[in-house]
């Protein structure tokens, strides 16, 4: 009887923990594996807003999904970009790497040109050049 009760209690606790911790937010200070610091991020949309910056001309290309992981001691990022329009779009992107102190961890990357077909998605990847890079921004620049 006691054992059954204990198992039921443990199951309830596990379920409660599972419900309380939203998927992608298991680790404090991280969302979907990406560092967020003290920023209020409660969805993938919030994360994209925090990490994606547009420079120069506005582009209609948007980041829809982002995942971060570690490969050895280097941060690796996968970002899904979406072209919702009915036209082929050209955009350039680069990652900006930030260190623990909020300073640039590496020199500016080269702009990488990208051609996106109409109504298409593409995943761009970035790997930190150094283990000093603990945060990042994805910069987009329209090439239209």
């Amino acid at each position, binding site marked *: 009887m006691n054992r059954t009760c204990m198992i039921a209690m443990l199951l309830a606790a596990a379920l409660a923990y599972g419900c309380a911790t939203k998927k992608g937010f298991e680790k404090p200070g991280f969302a979907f594996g990406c560092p967020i610091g003290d920023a209020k991020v409660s969805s993938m949309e919030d994360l994209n807003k925090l990490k994606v910056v547009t420079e120069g001309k506005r582009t209609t290309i948007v980041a829809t999904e982002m995942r971060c992981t570690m490969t*050895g*001691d*280097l941060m690796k990022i996968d970002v899904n970009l979406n072209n919702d329009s009915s036209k082929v779009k050209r955009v350039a992107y680069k990652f900006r790497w930030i260190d623990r102190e909020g300073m640039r961890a590496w020199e*500016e990357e080269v702009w990488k040109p990208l051609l996106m077909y109409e109504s298409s998605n593409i995943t761009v990847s970035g790997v930190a050049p150094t283990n000093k890079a603990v945060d990042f921004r994805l910069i987009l620049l329209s090439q239209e």
Partner: protein
Amino acid sequence: MIDLSHTRRLALLPLLTAVALAAGCAQVQTRYGDERSIETVTNQFSSTDLQLIAESMTRSMLQSTAIASGNLPIVTVQEVKNKTSEYIDTRAVTDSIRSELQKSGKVRFAVDAAAMQQQVEEVERQQGEYYDKEQTAEKGRMVGAQYRMEGNIISIVKQAKDIRDVYYKFNLQLWNTRNGLLEWSDEKEIRKTTTKG
């Protein structure tokens, strides 16, 4: 009464404007630009291509087991063969890759074949009587590389009346010098199309 001089002056005005415009167009202007911007002046091998290749290869190599193991492997740079129809300074590409890898702090580089002559000359120069024997570089102290980096670049060029398409493929390999095994290899592809009109 018509003022003739005024009419003549009015007729001269468009002419003077045209001359001023032409002079303005002919004016040469030099400005500093963004060295990392996308360069599309022609569709030949460009600074952007060099930077894209160097960055892509470096980031990929940093994830390889040979480099990521953290043992500070010693690498030597060998030739990157230019198999394209145009002149490409492949040494500039490998120099950029070497600099980025060196800065990452995960790799050490041994003197390569191209710099060997200078290295030998310097060691021999230090054997001279003018140098303090305690501090001179001794013969037989150089460290051999555990890995050698080599590669090639090819291009496929297609041209029709109003279109020119260039495809580049850069391939880089990291070979284990002790056992001859290929430890890492990756490619970077670039396509550029120029159309007229």
